[in-house]
């Protein structure tokens, strides 16, 4: 009887050890703050509605023509892609875009493929799922690539 208890506890201990190790491993590779100079996993919290939210983090494209792309990780549970807009320091909204879940969408400023040099800020809204009164605070996230020389 005691042997059975022992044998049933050993796998449990092994499983707990594996569980903790896996959780640590997952957290290590899952932390989104790690980013290269031209790609970051970004997120924002806002009321899901047709209201635009203007975020304060500036980012800069430093090539004459820059490749940019966006890939949504989470729509915050709204069931609709977050719509994003880029606005430069001259107050010109030069790109509006969205992407399906985990699908890269290229970003263009409307001229030739790519985006011109300069600093930009991001704006976001959820136009598809919730009305003007919103449907609560949500957090969206996704990958943004910028400042990649367009070849």
């Amino acid at each position: 009887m005691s042997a059975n208890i022992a044998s049933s506890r050993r796998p449990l201990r092994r499983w707990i050890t594996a569980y903790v190790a896996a959780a640590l491993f997952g957290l290590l590779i899952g932390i989104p703050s790690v980013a290269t100079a031209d790609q970051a996993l970004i997120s924002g919290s806002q009321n899901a509605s047709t209201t635009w939210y203007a975020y304060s983090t500036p980012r800069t494209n430093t090539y004459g023509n820059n490749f940019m792309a966006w890939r949504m990780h989470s729509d915050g549970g709204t069931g609709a892609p977050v719509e994003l807009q880029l606005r430069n320091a001259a107050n010109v909204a030069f790109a509006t875009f969205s992407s399906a879940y985990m699908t890269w969408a290229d970003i263009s400023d409307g001229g030739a493929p790519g985006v011109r040099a300069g600093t930009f800020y991001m704006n976001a809204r959820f136009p598809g799922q919730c009305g003007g009164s919103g449907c609560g605070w949500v957090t969206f996230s996704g990958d943004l690539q910028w400042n990649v020389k367009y070849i």
Partner: protein
Amino acid sequence: MKKRNTALAGLGVVATTALAVFAGSFASAAVPSAEEAAAGFLTEEEVDGAWRDITANYPEALPAGIEFPSSAPAFFQRPAGEKWMFETELIGEIAARYWRCAWLDQDIAAVSGRSSESVDLTDELATSTWQDLPDVQLDVYEYSEGISDYAAAEGLDESVAEFDLDCGIYTEEGAK
């Protein structure tokens, strides 16, 4: 039995790793309460007051004869019919950019001969001075390196390159 337990443990590793990765992707995006989230944004009606608050006693002076606009610049004026909220730090970020562009304009004027005054702008144009202004989100050091690279590639003076790229907030040319 042992094989089954080992298999279960392995399955647990895979499942837990997947869960942890999924959870980890939200690690920096913990959902705040509605009050916490709303507190980080200003309504369109609040922007002018916040602009006046931050520019009234600005820690660094603007060039002689230059003043901050009395209300928030065109950057904060959005198309009619749209509703906007602005992250609080955006006010300081744009005020700092306005300050920066005013001094760049002085520098360009001096170099081009547009200004007869010979001025030493070493302190005003120092990266550290800009970086230390209120609510500056930009990594000014990294930004300056990028602008320097861009100017070299395009064959431009660095001040001119930066002004042309990012000072529409100051000139309000092209604002829409």
